[in-house]
């Protein structure tokens, strides 16, 4: 099997299509392993992986941890609730201390955009970004792409629309970069007050009418509305958001065809997505979670065994 051109996985922007294909193709063999009664392979035996989580996350951390353990890596979890600045120790000092204990791979989630980029330039470990601020969340986008590919056979030429708070979403950015590389047609939909500046320049179509967005789409990726975020500043209320942008069975039925529904989770039932849609026939939300473990196994394997 060939190897990745990139030493770290910090994001999907500027990652070659060949690398994305390699990760997606490798994922298929790890999915097969996950179906076995014994779900463990010795691929990363003797390697140490640190999950460095500066932001609360249950599901992404568990997904990574399962992936690491199924590859037989030694796993250490480091959870810091607040920013490094508030703790008194700088991020760089924290990372260098952990690295001095001889680790191979650092999986990091951090509230600051570019945190992984910053450390990867100053440390010797391999870095996998598990989410940095509003910048990127590459393994989420990879598992989204993997799930879409399972359902549709290809990403090329598919119409995919990301719906929600684009400005603050690292999931949106990674999906946009990855899907465009893979030849999909990408659109976004949401209130313009939740779009980042000059959004169209990313190469996406922009909708503010959710029904038009649905008409465009083969696949929709419904983003979580952060309940704590800026209600009243970026949009009026959850109720109005649901009425204007919420994905409901009624809206989907009007289309007269099936579309695939993704959601990165955790879902707010009744806000951005109705229960009947989340649990409905087009939903691939649970396959996304399964694929997430396999994608992370593939990424850890490809990064961890890549020749220096």
């Amino acid at each position: 099997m060939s190897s990745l051109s990139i030493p770290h996985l910090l994001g999907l922007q500027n990652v070659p299509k060949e690398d994305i294909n390699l990760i997606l193709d490798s994922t298929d063999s790890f999915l097969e392993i996950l179906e076995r009664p014994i779900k463990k392979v010795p691929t990363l035996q003797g390697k140490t992986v640190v999950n460095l989580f500066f932001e609360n996350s249950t599901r992404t951390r568990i997904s990574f941890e399962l992936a690491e353990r199924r590859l037989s890596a030694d796993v250490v979890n480091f959870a810091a609730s607040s920013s490094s600045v508030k703790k008194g120790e700088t991020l760089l000092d924290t990372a260098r201390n952990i690295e001095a204990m001889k680790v191979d791979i650092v999986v990091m989630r951090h509230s600051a955009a570019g945190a992984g980029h910053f450390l990867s330039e100053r440390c010797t470990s391999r870095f996998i970004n598990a989410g940095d601020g509003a910048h990127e969340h590459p393994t989420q986008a990879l598992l989204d792409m993997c799930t879409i590919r399972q359902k549709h056979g290809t990403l090329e030429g598919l119409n995919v629309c990301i719906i929600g708070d684009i400005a603050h979403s690292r999931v949106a950015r990674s999906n946009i970069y990855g899907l465009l590389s893979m030849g999909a047609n990408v659109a976004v939909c949401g209130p313009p007050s939740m779009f980042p500046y000059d959004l169209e320049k990313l190469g996406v179509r922009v909708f503010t009418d959710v029904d038009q967005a649905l008409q465009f789409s083969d696949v929709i990726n419904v983003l979580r509305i952060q309940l704590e975020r800026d209600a009243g500043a970026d949009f009026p209320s959850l109720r109005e958001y649901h009425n204007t942008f919420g994905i409901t069975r009624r809206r989907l039925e009007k289309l007269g065809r099936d579309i695939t529904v993704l959601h990165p989770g955790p879902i707010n039932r009744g806000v951005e997505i109705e229960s009947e849609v989340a649990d409905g026939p087009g939903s691939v939300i649970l396959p996304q979670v399964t694929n997430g473990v396999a994608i992370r196994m593939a990424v850890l394997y490809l990064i961890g065994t890549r020749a220096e």
Partner: protein
Amino acid sequence: MASFVFKNAHIVDPVSGLDTVKDIHVTGDVIAGIGDNLSPAGAEEIDLRGAHIVPGLCDMHVHFREPGFEHKEDIRSGAAAAAAGGFTAAACMPNTDPVIDNAAVIAFIFDRAKGLPVDVYPIAAITKGRKGEAIAPMAELREAGAVGFSDDGSPVHNTKILRTALEYGSMFDVPIIQHAEDPYLFSGGAMNESIVSTELGLPAISRLSEDAIVTRDLMFTEYVGGRYHLAHMSTVGAAQAVRSAKSRGLRVTSEVAPHHFSLTDEEVRGYDSNVKMNPPLRRRDDVIAMKEALKDGTADAIATDHAPHAGFEKEVEFVYAPFGIIGLETAVGLSVTELLLENWLTLPQLVEKLSTNPRRILGLPEIRIAEGSKANFSFLDITAQWTVDVQRFQSKSRNSPYHGRTLTGRPLGIFNNGQLVLHR
């Protein structure tokens, strides 16, 4: 009394209109004579063939961090950086601890600067504690020696306070210097708002944040009078507003920092906190607008906003890094490279932006290269190429984005207060 003769230098003085190669003889701190082939007995000869002598440069916007943050810079190290950068004067901003909002802190600063070859002029806070809530004792501060008023680092946002500052401040004929930024639009921003912030996922500061405050402030200046100076102008919109205000005859001046006429927000890709400052690096059209503003007189001065921070403070996640870069030791090189060589300004015009105009805005004594005047010069080699090496800076801090960049135009030294500082 020490005596020097500076030989064969090209003297450029926009005030006296001098633009010629002559020798200058200085005794003590006074120009004893200007002429050809001077060789007075007992004078030390300094050969400056190929170099220029210009009126001492003045940076009207620096942060010397003393009192309060001496691990970043102090008045002595800041003055050394100024001298190394070819400046004989610097006006220091009041965001110290304690804030420069009473006469005692001003007296302290003058005391610390006593005997230095660089004159340090304090700018006092507009409001007590720079909190934006109540006007500082401006008469007391002016009497103690403040050369201007500013809450720099924060805007004066409250419209009533702004009006009072312009009205009350008009008694003293010194500028009200505004850090123009709308705090609501700023909201935790770390870089300019553009496609780059969109791609990087960084919280952004829109140009609107500066434009809105400048436009509003100029309406106030027009209504109540007073003298308004816009610090670190950085946007197309702010330049248009100032240009229009000047054409209406308002007493308005502005300054531009070298990083705003030399770098764009594309530099932020890579998340290097040495390109993080406030106002942030903007777009290409803003950079060109700053050069145009300097050329047509909309921008009166080049001021560095020299903002030292310790390495450990800057070596953090981009959003957590403090704003600011140091600028004193690269200002001449950047001005020559970006403005003189690109024909935006002539050398006399460049000297106006770096010396004559900032001194006039702050009400400092005019410098004249003429017999009998006080000797206050900078020596420049405008053809020398050099590579910026932050390890060689006199500043205590190293937070410059220009490390490794090759510039044309190098300060060779200064003469002021009877003291010669040469760097060769």
